[in-house]
């Protein structure tokens, strides 16, 4: 049995909405991530997919403790990160690195490529956290080695980020993330700002690096085809919740949650023959605002298969197969909710409140 390298349990990240100029009263909260749980196993790629505002970026930022989570737990290699002291956190961060979405904003324009890639090494070296300690010359060699590995000529190391194209900058970001030999890389939409021909170069590079260094990825994207290509397992998020999690293959062949089904049918396929005869499920309306607490299924407002029961009962994860879980009342084996009326559902919800 494989051991999970990262365990996330009921993670919540709420941001306060405040009012008033001097006494900032909290009048509500944005529930960006509203209770998600999953495991990531060593050497695999867990893809998180969802539309903008579903909380996927916030989720990785809470996991890496860039935001202080509201509640829940994040266990990395047996270490609880949410309560870890700064010293422990510093050690853990060596193994958890991030790649960001925007290659234009995530590199300091005043630093040369050399200093960007060397920065993590320098920081850890200075605090004597690297074993063995590195000399300046060794750091220099390491930077060159990393640049060559991600496909950049080492002759460019004294250049500044603005001298590079988007794809090359993303390679710099990847080299920086690799500098400390991390165990897991959290990649937040690393290819969505890139052109198609560059996107495939970066996806191939990430795949090669994973094989070479045995890396684990937590990979976020909104593009379903990209997620399917790179992931071992996929989690689908909607409004701060995971609605379905499964092996990538199963999810695409046999999507269960109505949202996943709609998402897959909405994604365009670059093949006119397939596109011509495709039946689309067009969801009506927009994603609701995450600023209020919900008592029913989070997808209720837009769901084409909703039942009265769903309006006031939050579905738990139902296990449908090995590695395939879905949060939808349609898949509760114990009971069929189709003929439960709104009154009965409300009465039941009150009873359990």
């Amino acid at each position, binding site marked *: 049995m494989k051991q999970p390298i990262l365990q996330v349990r009921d993670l919540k990240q709420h941001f306060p909405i405040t009012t008033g100029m001097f006494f900032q009263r909290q009048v509500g909260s944005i529930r960006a991530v509203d209770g998600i749980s999953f495991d990531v196993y060593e050497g695999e790629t867990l893809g998180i997919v969802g539309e903008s505002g579903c909380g996927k970026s916030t989720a990785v930022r809470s996991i890496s403790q860039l935001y202080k989570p509201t509640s829940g737990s994040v266990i990395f290699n047996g270490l609880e990160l949410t309560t870890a002291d700064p010293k422990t956190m510093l050690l853990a961060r060596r193994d958890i690195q991030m790649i960001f979405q925007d290659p234009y904003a995530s590199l300091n324009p005043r630093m040369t490529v050399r200093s960007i890639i060397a920065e993590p090494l320098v920081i850890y070296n200075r605090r004597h956290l690297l074993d063995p300690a590195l000399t300046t010359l060794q750091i220099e060699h390491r930077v060159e080695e990393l640049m060559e590995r991600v496909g950049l000529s080492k002759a460019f190391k004294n250049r500044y980020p603005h001298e590079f194209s988007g794809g090359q900058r993303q390679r710099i970001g990847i080299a920086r993330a690799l500098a400390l030999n991390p165990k897991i890389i959290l990649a937040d939409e690393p290819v969505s700002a890139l052109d198609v021909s560059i996107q495939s170069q970066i996806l191939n590079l990430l795949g090669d690096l994973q094989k070479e260094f045995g890396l684990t990825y937590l990979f976020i994207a909104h593009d379903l085809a990209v997620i399917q290509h790179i992931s071992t397992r996929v989690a689908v998020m909607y409004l701060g919740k995971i609605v379905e999690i499964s092996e990538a293959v199963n999810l695409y062949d046999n999507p269960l949650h109505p949202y996943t089904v709609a998402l897959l049918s909405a994604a365009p396929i*670059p093949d006119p023959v397939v596109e011509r005869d495709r039946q689309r499920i067009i969801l009506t309306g927009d994603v609701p605002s995450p600023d209020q607490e919900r008592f029913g299924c989070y997808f209720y407002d837009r769901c084409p298969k909703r039942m009265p029961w769903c309006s006031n009962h939050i579905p738990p994860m139902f296990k449908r197969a090995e590695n395939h879980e879905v949060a939808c009342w349609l898949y509760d084996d114990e009971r069929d909710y189709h003929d439960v009326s709104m009154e009965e559902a409300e009465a039941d919800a009150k009873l359990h409140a």
Partner: protein
Amino acid sequence: MSPINNNQEVVLDVRDLQTYFKTDAGIVKAVDGVSFTLRKGQTLGIVGESGSGKSVTNLSIMRLIPSPPGKVVGGQALFEGEDILALDEKEMRKIRGNKISMIFQDPMTSLNPFLRISTQMIETIRLHNKGLTRKEALERSIEMLRLVGIPSAEKRVTNYPHQFSGGMRQRVMIAMALSCNAEILIADEPTTALDVTIQAQILELINKLSEQMGTSVILITHDLGVVAGMCDEVCVMYAGKIVEKAETEKLYAFPAHPYTEGLIRSVPRMNTTKKGERLYSIEGQPPNVIDLPPCCPFHPRCPKVMDVCRVAYPPITDLGGGHEVACWLYNSEEEKAAALKEAQA
């Protein structure tokens, strides 16, 4: 999608369009000799990566190129038998919005945040229909908003843009673009800023409206999936030139230009790509379009590069059935030798 009917009348005929920008570093040939025709009711896709000149092509047709630094230096765009590139600004205003309208990429910045939706729509409608009163124009706006699927349109019309979500703002833009019954709709990456489920709604809407009203659509996008579902014909652009033009199904089934082939093969697909398989990738970077030498701009990245590609730009070859390609692979040895000789001379 409707099959291409070559008997349909041509509504827009663009011939050898050239738009250059003057910069400190040199002249940028953003669009360099682009020609295409648009027929009534047809949806034409223009695909390319960023910087390939697809947006500039359409801004040139709309005469919206900021000048200086940009300038349309050559070519014609025949609309109803008239070259709209030669019209003066006053005459162009009668066409822009009225006969040819445009949807921009970013719905967040194309609406004025200080004005109510009603004010902005009434302004547009009354500008193009001089006889209408404000009240009639308001009724027309509500009707248009309803058509694009905005719920309780009569209430929402008095809202400000920030009260709408991204998808709804894009619907408002479409409603405004359609409110004058334009004959041509130019949609510049209309769904790039939107999520897939909202994208599906908007594309369905454009499709339905173009079928109902017989509008011809030019759809600019970088997304090959969107093109596959929407367009009758596709132009692929690279470094300011159209490198291949064909009916959509032909293009995907038999891409002739190595760039098109690479582009199609480098997109991961949900239905067929195997897990863990390496994606095909076009090595290298798109070229800098400043002072491009007169060679094929794709040659440094091309897997099938020949000597002649490095010195001369390929002529356009017709492969039959409207399938055109600009690549030396489809020219005879004599033609290649002649071009080589001429370049060396």
